[in-house]
């Protein structure tokens, strides 16, 4: 199940949110060595963790976080516009109905399982509900085929480039019912993956 946390319900789900920051520390600081974002040796936080951020946490039956990602408005300065501008050919997408997806990650023990697909289905479901038409993201080139095999429509925003020891590519994921149903089918999931949310009002797109 995927729990969505934003500024309206973060008090209610404070524990999950904290678990999410700890989880990211495990993955991004300990496993991938992004020490710049280490906070107090147990959280991973950057400047895009604020009131505008929408968090998605995959949680197990004991409410432990087993995977996550976050969305951030593309109309505000965001990771692609501020730090990876050179990966985009042309204008950086900046629209009310486009969000940037970052920090997607799955617990080591869950890799190869359905958590990854659940997260991807969660993105489609949420965005379809909220009339968001696309999600930009930075992905490693060697993961591209896996995202496509999971059923996603991917549009490249620039050529892949070497960043550190990785080949990175800026992309736009299409949001549509076809992608959602492909992801669900691949993962043999039957239905909504998002937790019915209490305390999160309908978001208004201007």
């Amino acid at each position, binding site marked *: 199940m995927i729990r969505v946390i934003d500024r309206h319900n973060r008090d209610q789900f404070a524990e999950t949110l904290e678990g999410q920051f700890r989880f990211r520390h495990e993955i991004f600081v300990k496993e991938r060595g992004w020490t710049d974002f280490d906070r107090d040796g147990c959280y991973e936080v950057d400047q895009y963790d604020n009131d505008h951020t929408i968090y998605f946490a995959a949680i197990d039956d004991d409410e432990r976080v087993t995977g996550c990602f976050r969305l951030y408005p593309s109309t505000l300065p965001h990771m692609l516009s501020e730090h990876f501008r*050179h990966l985009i*050919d042309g204008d950086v997408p900046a629209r009310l109905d486009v969000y940037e997806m970052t920090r997607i990650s799955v617990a080591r023990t869950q890799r190869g399982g359905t958590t990854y697909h659940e997260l991807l289905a969660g993105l489609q479901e949420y965005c379809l509900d909220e009339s968001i038409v696309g999600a930009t993201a930075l992905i490693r080139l060697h993961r591209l*085929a*896996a995202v*496509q095999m999971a059923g996603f429509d991917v549009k*490249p925003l620039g*050529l*892949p*480039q070497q960043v550190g020891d990785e080949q990175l590519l800026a992309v736009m994921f299409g949001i549509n019912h076809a992608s959602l149903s492909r992801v669900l089918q691949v993962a*043999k999931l039957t239905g909504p993956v998002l937790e019915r949310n209490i305390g999160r009002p309908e978001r208004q797109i201007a």
Partner: protein
Amino acid sequence: MEPVQFKAAFDAINRINAATTSDELHLTLQRDLASLGYEFLLFAMAPAPHRQTFDRLVLFQHWPSDWFDQYSRSNFHDHDPIAQFVRTRFDAFDWSDVPPSDDPISRTLMASSAADFGMRRGLCIPIHDCFGYRAALSLATSHEPPQSHAAAEMIAIFAFNRMNRLRLASTPTRLTTREREVVTWAAAGKTAWDTGSILHVSEQTIEKHLTSAMRKLNSYTKAQVVAESLRSGEISL
């Protein structure tokens, strides 16, 4: 950023996504890679238990036909250092990055044979999904290859995805009742020996059904044929 090259890659990807048959896809891919500077290409699947020989690995190719014949006939694939090296790599590599081989046939293959047919320089692009190494696109040219691999790499991955979508769209249910039964037991965690005992047939017979199901669903491992069978609705739990 090289804007002209991105535009070319982007247009190529749009043409790939617009292809409605594999012939169309091959044609547009060949043209676009030629305009990037690669005259020769060969798209091959990763070897799998039911797919070992070179002719069964090749999805499609545009090689000098004499070279392709010689390569197939002489079983050069088994000696090709590029074919070995690609399995160990996540990212594309230049032929010149392939470590030298001790095998004399490999050395001749690399140093002269391919070059005799105009394939002097080349790039090999591995493609991975959640299950691991799936396919590779091998590109070659008699000229100086483009400085950047980026466009070719991206095009290769999109082409592979399009091939898969076209294949899925054109292939409905194919497993036999027995194959479905065997895969269902595999999904329940049974070994071939277990399943053989349950169905009162030999372990070899079970392996035969599994291999056949793997071939039909283009899978590489037992785990994958289970996943593919579930995904395509061949079996349910």
